[in-house]
């Protein structure tokens, strides 16, 4: 008899196998997770809404459907969590902002529709930093150390996965908001290529930088969820009609001969020593599996964050233009500051930054020309403490916001697919992430490399004590 704690930390694909083999039922899975949420989430605070009755009903429906031979695949009957930025029919969707208090969408966003179609059981809504504009994700705490933030903005998704409170979650990523919390919570996440997954019905932070994608405890789980949600959406003009491969089938474990670009510049500057050591060791592991590490230089990355911030603040300010005038006090202080800054950004600054973006995209394209993927640290540091505003790298101080975006935002600017997988722990017990970046629409290779690494490491198998 499998113990409740072991059930909660099953990988999604393992839970799915047991469901398919009738070892465990969707109702049992759901009840076990709901019980754990009720016990543990008092401290982690990853959920803003727990859908006890709706989840139980969905689990019963899944179970009955399977009994009648209507098995839909690996998400059928599997409990998952949805970031509160995603519209969910009949369920309050606040983007964790007073601005949207009481907003109950009358339809699901495309991604949630697809997940329901695949048979997933929605346990509830998990926190986001207000409107995804930040990395704190208050009030959620990092399950590895409750004095630390879970990072963000998909902090609820990352913390819920690390705490064993769901089998997968949705995230969104404008400057690192899937990958940063994946790294901070010791779980996996992938920001797919711009245009790969629909953003219809997901609150906007920045039209040209936002991406939606999955978070989970294993790469195979990411592959399963990404396969379910990817693809062209006529309701989202950002999506592109590119065939969606079977990502799980791409996870062969074989990366012999794969060329792995290791940036010589930018991505290893101002990195905390434990992060540097863990990523270097991870590159060694990939080489031991037959991959070839190739040094690459990415030209002209100077001032890249100065070109990122005008885009995100201007676009966010445009989206919130009306509310900022009508009820500015409803925004949190940090978000209001960003929005006011974006309002005052010169149009020429925005346009020059968008032109600079062409240069960055070309540089990444060139750097990827002779390699299959690139690897970098996901974050230069481990999860900051709650309330911490500045990170220290040697003599240099950097805001938590800038440090969190530094290695992630370049791939929002370029639109390239990028995953984060756990690759170690710092002496303070906090997780470290390895970022794997691929060519446009080649999530399959990113996941293949990530999965091969995962098969030869055990970082993803560790769980916080949460005593």
């Amino acid at each position, binding site marked *: 008899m499998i113990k409740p704690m072991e059930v909660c930390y099953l990988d999604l694909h393992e839970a799915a196998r047991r469901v398919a083999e009738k070892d465990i039922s969707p109702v049992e899975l759901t009840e076990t997770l709901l019980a754990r949420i009720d016990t543990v989430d008092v401290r982690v605070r990853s959920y803003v809404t727990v859908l006890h009755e709706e989840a139980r009903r969905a689990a019963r429906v899944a179970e009955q459907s399977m009994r009648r031979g209507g098995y839909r695949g690996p998400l059928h009957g599997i409990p998952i969590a949805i970031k509160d930025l995603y519209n969910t029919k009949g369920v309050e969707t606040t983007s964790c902002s007073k601005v949207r208090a009481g907003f109950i969408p009358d339809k699901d966003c495309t991604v949630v529709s697809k997940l329901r179609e695949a048979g997933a059981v929605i346990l509830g809504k998990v926190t986001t930093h207000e409107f995804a504009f930040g990395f704190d994700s208050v009030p959620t705490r990092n399950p590895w150390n409750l004095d630390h933030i879970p990072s963000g903005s998909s902090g609820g998704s990352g913390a819920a996965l690390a705490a064993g409170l769901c089998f997968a979650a949705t995230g969104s990523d404008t400057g690192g908001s899937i990958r940063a919390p994946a790294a901070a919570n010791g779980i996996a996440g992938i920001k797919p290529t711009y245009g790969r997954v629909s953003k219809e019905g997901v609150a906007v932070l920045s*039209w040209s930088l936002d991406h939606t994608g999955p978070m989970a405890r294993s790469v195979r789980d990411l592959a399963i969820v990404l396969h379910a949600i990817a693809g062209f959406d006529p309701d989202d*003009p950002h*999506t592109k009609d590119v065939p969606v491969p079977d990502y799980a089938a791409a996870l062969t474990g074989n990366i012999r001969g794969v060329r792995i670009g290791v940036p010589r510049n930018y991505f290893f500057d101002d990195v905390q020593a434990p992060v540097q050591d863990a990523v270097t060791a991870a590159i060694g592991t990939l080489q031991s599996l037959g991959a070839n590490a190739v040094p690459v230089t990415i030209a002209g990355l*100077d001032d890249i964050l100065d070109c990122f*911030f005008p885009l995100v603040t201007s676009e966010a300010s445009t989206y919130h233009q009306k509310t900022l005038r009508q009820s500015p006090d409803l925004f949190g202080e940090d978000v209001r500051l960003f929005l*006011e800054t974006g309002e005052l950004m010169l149009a020429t600054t925005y346009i020059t930054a968008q032109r600079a973006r062409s240069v960055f*995209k070309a540089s990444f394209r060139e750097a990827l020309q002779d390699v299959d993927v690139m690897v970098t640290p996901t974050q230069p540091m481990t999860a900051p403490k709650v309330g911490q505003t500045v990170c220290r790298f040697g003599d240099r101080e950097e805001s938590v916001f800038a440090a969190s975006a530094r290695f992630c935002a370049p791939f929002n600017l370029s639109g390239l697919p990028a995953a984060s997988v756990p690759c170690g722990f710092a002496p303070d017990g906090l997780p470290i992430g390895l970022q794997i970046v691929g060519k446009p629409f080649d999530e399959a290779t990113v996941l293949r490399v990530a999965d091969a690494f995962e098969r030869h490491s055990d970082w993803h198998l560790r769980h916080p004590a949460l005593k």
Partner: protein
Amino acid sequence: MENHDDQLTEDDLRHIAKSAGLTLKAANVGQIADTLRTLRAGVMRKDRTFAAHTPLAIRFDASWEGKP
């Protein structure tokens, strides 16, 4: 192009905001001025490194120059 943002005063900012129908939170004005100066300086530095005919990257149709 010269960057004149170092001459931007908090009163200037309040005035620009007012003309756009926005009242800035008083405590934010100084920080906004600093941020705008820093970002503008970075963007203009970058501008000097690329060709005048460089296009905007923004493409809402999600097309990618480097096709898969």
